[in-house]
């Protein structure tokens, strides 16, 4: 079975036998390893990607359901020359410890800021509440998202 979809703006096709998760295709077939395996049960948010702009967990999403759709992963956030303002803000706030949760969190944060450029703290918390962080970097992460939102609003003026 051949499935075509768009990843980070490029059209890709994969040949698959039987049911395969989007996460396995991204990591093992396309070499996009920035999307993490955490639990395989949609409970931790480590594997969050955007599908047509909506945050979705890739670990148990059957590849067939994303045929023809557009997927954005952590690798699609930055350009060759510059980090996404969210990535820069996470560095500026030193928002992370081990960092394993960050790919997924950055993706959900991007989805939030794309639809709501000026979110309240409560809205940011709600957007990230599906994500687990075991190191306890939560407060720094929330501040980083606020910082990025502010930077992006400044830029778009």
């Amino acid at each position, binding site marked *: 079975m051949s499935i075509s979809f768009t990843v980070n703006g490029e059209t890709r096709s994969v040949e698959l*036998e*039987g049911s*395969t*998760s989007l996460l*396995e295709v991204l*990591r*093992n077939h396309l*070499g*996009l*390893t*920035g*999307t*993490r*395996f*955490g*639990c*395989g*049960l949609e*409970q*931790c948010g*480590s594997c969050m990607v955007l599908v047509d702009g909506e945050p979705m967990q890739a670990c148990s999403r059957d590849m067939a359901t994303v045929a023809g759709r557009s997927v954005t*992963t*952590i*690798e699609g*956030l*930055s350009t060759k020359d510059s*980090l996404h303002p969210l*990535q820069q803000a*996470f*560095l500026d706030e*030193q928002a*992370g*410890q*081990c*960092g*394993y*949760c*960050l*790919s997924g969190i*950055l993706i959900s944060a991007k989805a939030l800021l794309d639809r709501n450029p000026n979110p309240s703290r409560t809205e940011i*918390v*709600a957007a*990230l*509440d599906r*994500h*687990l*962080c*075991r*190191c*306890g*970097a*939560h*407060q*720094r*992460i*929330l501040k980083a998202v606020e910082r990025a939102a502010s930077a992006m609003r400044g830029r778009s003026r």
Partner: protein
Amino acid sequence: MTAPLPTSLVDNPRLDRWIRFLPDRTVRIATGKVEIGQGIVTALGQIAADELDLPYARVVVLSGNTDEGPDELYTSSSHSIEIGGSAVRLVCAEVRAKALERVALRLNCSPTDITVAEGRFIQNGVETGQDYWTVAGEIDLSQNVKGTTAPKATIAYAIVGQDIPRLDLPAKVSGAAFIHDVLEPGTLHARVLRQPNRGARLVSLDEAAIRRVAKGEFRILREANFVAFVGKEEGVVNAAAIAAEHHAEWDKVRRLTPEQQEAAWLKGQPSEDRPYGVPAPAMAPRNLVQATYSRPYVAHASLAPSCALAEYLDGHLTIQSHGQGMHPLRRNVAAALGIPIESITAKHLHGAGCYGHNGADDAAMDTALIAMRLPGERVRVRWRREEEFAFEPVGPAMLITLHVGLDELGYPADWTTEIWSPTHVQRPGSGGALLAAEALANPPAPAKPTDPPVERGGGATRNAIPLYDVPAHRILHHLTQNPPIRTSALRGLGALPNVFAIESMLDDLAARIGQDPLAYRLAILSDPRARRLLEQVAERCGWASRGTAGTGKGLGLGLAKYKNKSAYAAVVAAVTIDEEVRVERIWCVADAGVVVNPDGARNQLEGGIVQAISWTLKEQVRFDGQGISSRDWESYPILRFSEVPEMQVELVDGAGNPPLGIGECTCGPTAAAVGNAVAHALGARIHDMPFTRERVMKALL
């Protein structure tokens, strides 16, 4: 008298194990300590650059490499700055002095005429054209460190004390960082069918049934009670491992019961009784107050399941792992496989935060064992989520009874901390074994349980002695001999339960004489560094206006000096309770001596606080007949974004005191502060963690 050398230098005396001048005009510092999200690589680079007078960018750090780096055992116990950092500083001081000697010879002057600016040598204010790299060839780094060159005075620190951004973070926000992501073409993926417990015997395995479920090509490696599924498609071998659980028949399987998951079960079990401190008084103290506290088994619960890579090529085994110590891993794998230690290289790659001894070493052994059977193949094992929860060693349950004899004023005169706990340290080679080795035909004999002695910081006994002025104190430690599950090191070992118990008791003793908990503590605390923190945190949180008890809102305090010899932390928690406990705010003031990287240190203090709140409010490993039954994030919930409090975290000026590790010092005080805040809010105390809704309701009855 000179101070004794840090153990890291005693074990690795040759300078070239630590430092090399590279042709690209950088200095490579090697360390046995590894990055686990705590920023150690960044901090050690700061120490080296500072002592050598080099720009930070000229220092590169090689971490966790058995071929080239020093053996510093494990990255644990908040030792990396205290011991690893001191070692790096002494080495750099000595090499700097050797370089100055060489350049002075060349310039025919005295070393005291030379200063160092960004790695260049300056003679009486004039550039000499010489730098570290022009003389590097003349410095004999094969010599052993003497440790007699005095490092810089703390007042001269220039790079230490700066908020240098973490070196590892850029990769971690860009999706490229972890061992899990090393997926080179041709790699063979593997999964393991876990032996249910030590001694369990695989009676039969229905391989045909497994192949019917996991459609695709894979090999089944089977050796005694070890079974691995190996193939090119990760999804296929993963499906095979899941199917195998349903098609394997075992005997000698140990059955667990839900009663065993509770700390209370430990009392009455066979134990080795280990007294410490002054003998118990012949007669029970007058005005004896007793109370019992507990914490259940808790998981490290790393966000990523353990992973490892290995390749056996031309008689040499190379292992890549995210374990806490590469030299110990190499020794333990060599012993388990029965091959010479020289035929193994172990290298560290980043993994998710581990917070102690999790499945990392076991995954490395799985991978090594499979790679040895498949020479020339590159093998990758990644545990499944449920495998990590069910088979990683867990933090031990602890039951603590405090027996406190009071003086006529109501202050402690005689104090006994009585502890029931399984071992806190069961690392392979020191009390424990690698899981895969236990599944082989000749498994290592089970070791008699042991626990670190109080003098070495203690395990179950860590922080069991109050920091306060108590005339007579002792510990009675009942080390459980046959715990139901494998336990090992979890962030802070016994510090969290002990500090929770002691600080809970102090609040209740204060209440007995109608004294404010802060005033009660200050009345029996002579350590000036601790007093300063209490006073400062009280001011920050507005302790003076703390209201009456029983309103549903509470403010509580906790204090400890980690291991009774390391970093101090005072924490205040504000909670509200409406059936469930919600921690609204945290104030923390810590004293860790001179701080290498203040922002990195605050990050660690914050992380310790959040993890401690999570343990205190939510976490418990659960058992059923099949073993550990809490195998996902729904049955093992941790603190979420919507539950994490606002935090105000400060470090006081180090006043020239030696730098102390900070990763674990906030855990105990945080649990204690939450416990005391909950007692204040409810007007009744909860003695047992976690503070579930049921326990809140019960306390209110």
